[in-house]
């Protein structure tokens, strides 16, 4: 078996007395697409943020291609693990293109022409080729999130993390972002996605992880998870999200 591209071992994290993650372990193969599901407060987003150490944790280790991530080399980890946030977090004093080339220019020290060419290509790819000089205030939420995806891709990461990327969007804008995420997945990106979009999970995920109260309750391929959930807790959760009005 090959070395997993990402491995988490026994991650524990609490906020004060509140234990948010209680021993999370999983590993991920290259090009694998994992969707993490679970009720709010189950620790999904915290887990995602622990992967690139945006959140510190008390116990456990993160391994990238078999190598333990050292506290003093976090920027090296983060160069290889891109992240897309719920609230986009676009740099508000920069244009769309400037947002995308910021990482290549100032983290990777790429030369300017090369970075611009790459940035324009990526903006084209997310369908915003004509918006490259737009300021964030001139863009819709869906467009901002697509810029954010282009910005993450510009670093040529090994893995992309998505933290509820469509939760802050108006319903009519969700589709365009999911579309881009799907195309990124089809090009072979390794992805960990925290989302409530069940359709995306069904279509794109190789594996679904169901979390509740800080532990992984169940995991498996989406068709199995959605049709034959093994545990009571995942059954309950799925029945609620798949038919929210409760037939």
């Amino acid at each position, binding site marked *: 078996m090959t070395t997993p591209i990402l491995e988490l071992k026994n991650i524990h994290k609490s906020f004060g007395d509140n234990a948010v993650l209680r021993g999370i372990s999983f590993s991920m193969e290259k090009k694998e697409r994992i969707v993490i599901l679970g009720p709010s407060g189950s620790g999904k987003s915290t887990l995602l943020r622990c992967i*690139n150490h*945006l959140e510190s944790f008390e116990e456990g280790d993160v391994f990238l291609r078999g190598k333990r991530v050292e506290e003093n080399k976090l*920027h*090296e*980890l*983060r*160069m290889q693990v*891109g*992240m897309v*946030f719920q*609230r*986009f*977090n*676009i*740099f*508000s*004093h920069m244009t769309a293109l400037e947002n995308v080339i*910021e*990482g290549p220019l*100032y*983290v990777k020290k790429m030369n300017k022409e090369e970075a611009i060419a790459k940035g324009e290509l990526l903006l084209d790819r997310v369908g915003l080729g004509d918006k490259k000089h737009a300021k964030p205030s001139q863009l819709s939420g869906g467009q901002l999130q697509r810029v*954010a995806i282009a*910005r*993450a891709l510009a*670093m040529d990461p090994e893995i992309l993390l998505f933290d509820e990327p469509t939760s802050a969007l108006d319903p009519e804008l969700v589709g365009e972002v999911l579309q881009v995420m799907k195309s990124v997945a089809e090009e072979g990106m390794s992805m960990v996605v925290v989302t409530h979009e069940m359709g995306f999970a069904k279509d794109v995920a190789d594996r679904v992880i169901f979390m509740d109260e800080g532990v992984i309750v169940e995991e498996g391929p989406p068709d199995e998870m959605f049709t034959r959930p093994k545990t009571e807790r995942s059954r309950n959760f799925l029945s609620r999200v798949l038919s929210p009005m409760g037939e």
Partner: protein
Amino acid sequence: MDIVIRRLPNLLNGSLLTLEYSLFSLVLGLLLGVFIALMRDSNYRLLSGISWFYIWVFRGTPLMVQLFIIYFGLSQFNIIMTPFVAGILGMTLNNGSYIAEIVRSGIHGVDEGEREAARALGMRYWTEMRRIVAPQAAKQCMLPMVNQFISTIKNSSILSVITVAELTREGQVIANSSFNYFPVYITVAALYLIMTSLCMVLSNWLQRRLG
């Protein structure tokens, strides 16, 4: 009125000195203030504590007393400074404590999410500060800084107590020797008003440019 016209060169020289002290202590105070602000937000307790203490002391005591301590007090320990050095030092330390708080509120005004995104790209602390935080914080700080400049110009009149021949001191000398207080001090006030008004014009212009 005669006396004012005759001694106007002295008053203008005093004004120049007032501007000079204000400008110097503002620029040095800005450097100090940024440094202190970053220290205050540092994860190291000691650095943050030192910075807290400094701000606490210099914002909580009058500039005049600070100048007395620096100029007269320290001379008892054979630390003897010219009025110029003591004046710049005192006003810089005083300005630094206020500017540190201005800079800090500017930094805190930058969206935490954007800073997180910068870190998520792999940026180190100084790159994040320079590329993401500084440009946005600077914009936030612009107007409070102009206000600080106005205060500094007015506060510099206190330098007269350590014999710096700035505008107020010049006015005092002329008034005391001529016993003609009213026109002299009105002129002094007018000269201050001209200097602070220039700052306000600058502030309005900035406000319009920054939207």
